[in-house]
């Protein structure tokens, strides 16, 4: 049996899964220290399901803690950034374009040192060990403990980053090193930003990992725990301590993966309706479609693997208005004041929840408070909600034709009719804890993103084979069970203006976590 936990901003959800069955689910408020909320949720789950802690094989945790810490500038430490590639790139040094407040909190010095690679693998300059040694001394003298290392085209060849890490480890074992090649994709600034963000979060990651460990130990759970990454796969506790930044945006990913698991759907639109907004994502081969644009986190440009999510102002608290142009719903919401402001709770604001209750599709609050609403109004408001969704779904589709829709989240009662463009509407049991389920079912992945020279069909074949083999090897190294690993995505993008058929290949492989599961 495995336990999935989703630590959200408001609630901590926990589910118990055995194979393909959901044995139980609980919701508890998130605690300030994170661990006591997890403790409470899991112990409630264990007692609800009447099991003993030793029956649990693994615990999977999805958390927004690191994203929130970064966005709110909490618990971050200063970072020294070393960029390898001088003299290239020197016009735009590390920390360029970072917001001032964040720079003040994190910038612990930076240097650009000789080394790095060209697109075709040649060295830009020979790697300069002495320059890196100078950086170590500089960082030490400033009392900095976290180093972020980036290197031009380290996605192609990570050798210089690795040599820098070895050297730093030898000269100053107390320093911790984050390498850009292990965190990001093509795009030096974004990859370097990811390494700096990661470094700034590492002491917090150590603390959180310890908190998770002690929470589980207090409950008598001896099983290992894993943490959700932004691509819907898992990493072990050791990995999280080193790469906390990989947890960014794991929440929406887990909700999409949970929806896929609950319905068995491979390709579908997932609509997660909350109190204020609805998040609409797309499942492709049961994985979230990833965003292709740059994502700003806390004002810093990154190129993480983030799910492509469209948020619209439609939720249980959305304000319903009758105007000259007909009925409008949202985008403003009474939010957390739903329980005092909505008509069904004795308030004075007509909300989407009131419409759901008045139309008989939901039962909560006091239905008599909305019995006087005209049936025209209720009917038109429902139509307005359906058309808002239809419009959003249409924006997220990548091909013409109808597509299945999965409704998850607390606000799913708002939707009673199939919107246009939807072939089939699904609202599975346990849809309210899809996030925690997504965490529980997490698999393990490996990815390569590098540039190959494809001059003929033969070299193309060889490159694809190499990319696949590397992705699979990475998945196994990350803890996947060897026989279960499959390549789920491979993209080839020819590069403009370059000779020699230079082509960027992105390949991702995914497999099941290698563990023995007792049913």
């Amino acid at each position, binding site marked *: 049996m495995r336990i999935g936990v989703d630590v959200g901003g408001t609630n901590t959800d926990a589910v118990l899964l055995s194979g393909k069955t959901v044995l139980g689910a609980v919701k508890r408020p998130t605690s300030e220290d994170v661990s006591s909320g997890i403790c409470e949720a899991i112990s409630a789950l264990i007692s609800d399901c009447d099991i003993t802690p030793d029956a649990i094989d693994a615990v999977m945790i999805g958390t927004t803690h690191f994203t929130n810490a970064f966005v709110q500038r909490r618990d971050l430490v200063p970072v020294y950034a070393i960029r390898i590639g001088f*003299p290239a790139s020197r016009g*735009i040094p590390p920390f360029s374009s970072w917001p001032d407040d964040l720079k003040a909190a994190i910038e612990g010095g930076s240097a650009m040192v000789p080394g790095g690679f060209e*697109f075709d693998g040649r060295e830009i300059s020979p790697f300069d060990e002495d320059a890196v040694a100078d950086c170590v001394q500089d960082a030490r003298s400033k009392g900095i403990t976290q180093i972020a290392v980036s290197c031009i085209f380290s996605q192609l060849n990570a050798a210089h980053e690795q040599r820098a890490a070895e050297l730093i480890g030898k000269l100053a074992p107390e320093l911790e090193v984050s390498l850009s090649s292990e965190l990001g994709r093509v795009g030096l600034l974004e990859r370097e930003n990811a390494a700096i963000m990661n470094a700034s979060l590492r002491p917090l990651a150590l603390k959180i990992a310890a908190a998770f460990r002690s929470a589980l130990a207090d409950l008598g759970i001896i099983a290992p725990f894993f943490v959700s990454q932004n691509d819907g796969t898992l990493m072990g506790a050791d990995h999280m301590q080193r790469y906390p930044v990989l947890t960014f945006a794991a929440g929406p990913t887990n909700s999409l993966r949970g929806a896929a698991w609950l319905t068995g759907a491979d390709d579908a639109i997932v609509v997660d309706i909350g109190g204020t907004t609805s998040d609409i994502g797309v499942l492709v081969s049961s994985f979230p479609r990833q965003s292709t644009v740059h994502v700003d986190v806390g004002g810093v440009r990154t190129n993480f693997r983030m799910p492509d999510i469209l948020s619209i102002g439609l939720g249980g608290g959305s304000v319903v208005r009758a105007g000259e142009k007909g009925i409008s719903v949202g985008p403003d919401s009474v939010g957390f004041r739903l329980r005092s402001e909505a008509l069904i709770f004795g308030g004075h604001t007509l909300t989407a929840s009131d419409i759901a209750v008045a139309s008989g599709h939901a039962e909560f609050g006091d239905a008599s408070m909305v019995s006087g609403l005209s049936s025209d109004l209720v009917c038109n408001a429902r139509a307005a909600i359906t058309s808002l969704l239809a419009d959003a779904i*249409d*924006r997220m589709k990548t091909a013409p034709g109808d597509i299945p829709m999965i409704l998850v989240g607390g606000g799913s009662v708002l939707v009673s009719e199939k919107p246009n463009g939807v072939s089939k509407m699904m609202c599975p049991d346990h849809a309210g804890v899809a996030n925690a389920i997504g965490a529980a079912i997490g698999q393990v992945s490996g990815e390569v993103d590098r540039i190959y020279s494809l001059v003929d069909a033969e070299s193309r074949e060889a490159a694809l084979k190499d990319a696949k083999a590397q992705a699979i090897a990475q998945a196994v190294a990350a803890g996947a069970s060897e026989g279960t690993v499959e390549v789920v995505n491979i993209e080839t*993008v020819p*590069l*403009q203006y370059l*000779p020699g058929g230079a082509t960027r290949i992105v390949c991702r492989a995914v497999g099941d976590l290698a563990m023995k599961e007792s049913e």
Partner: protein
Amino acid sequence: MVRHITLDNIEHLAIGSSFLGTGGGGDPYLGSIMCREAIARHGPVPILSVEDIRDEDNIFIAAALGAPTVMIEKLFSIEDQHRAVEALERYLGREATAVISAEIGGCNSMMPVAYAAMRGLPIIDGDGMGRAFPALQMTSFNIEGVACAPLTIADEHGNSALFQTTTGLKAEELSRPVAAAMGASVCMSCYAMTGVEARRATVAKTLSGAIKIGEAIADTSSTSHPVDRLVAALRAHEYYSDAAVLFKGKITGLERDTTKGWVFGNCTISEMNGPSKAELKFQNENLLVTVDGELRCIVPDLVTIVDAETAHAIPTERLAFGQRVAVVGCSAPPILTTQRALDVVGPKCFGLTQDYAPIATLIKDLA
């Protein structure tokens, strides 16, 4: 009238130049970071109008040349740009008194600003394209008889190369393999001009135009719709004034082919509640648009797909099925539509069979 490029309007220039990039030209993001640093260090850059250029002025181009995917790894630096310009200055025996952009559309609107800041020189309110084009010979400078060569390129190590060629086409052909050997992301200078030449051959008022377009799109204090503000800003400009929203709808079809080194493709946009369709053809930049089979705008006139809500330009590589867009077209600067110009930047140069027809003759409802 905008007199300086400052920390306050550099973002407007980036937004406006993306529109004038007509789907190509590259992302001005990296360039805008460099401009910010350069302006913060050296101060605002004075803008020099084309009519104020003196005969004895020497105008030099600053530009980045290379593969976009490499540029985002190797970034840029102004010192390398300086090497390219310096090499050309030395060869010609004359020193720059002003800097000009070769291509106002996209990322090459930015490098000249950062470079002018570093040199303490003014930047010309104009460029060589008034938009973006995929090749070096497609400039008003070339059309008006300014030689592209000598052309210089410089890498980050202090290496530079100078190409003294018989034609601009040859300069481009010879420089590409050297640029690739230098790492496929280099700085360049070419089309060096005297004041007399620059006054004759420049597409004027495009820098201030880009800033005004960006200002209009980004103006959060206005209550009017961003797309309407964009069209109003175009209509207020001396050249881009035959401007209109040619179509509104969602993207329902997209074909892209990048195998030949350029991004060739087609984009179909369908009306939201009706049967009309627009077809857009692009080769890096947008080339032409038809609505229900009728031609509405064709190169060198400008066609840009913008976000229907924000009016921000969407580059061809970021077009996606389902996007809600407006297709905005406007007239090209007159210097690009003469017969001589059409031989260099007209539809035939892109393998199109249609003849050029000014947007004003294709659209009825122009204000």
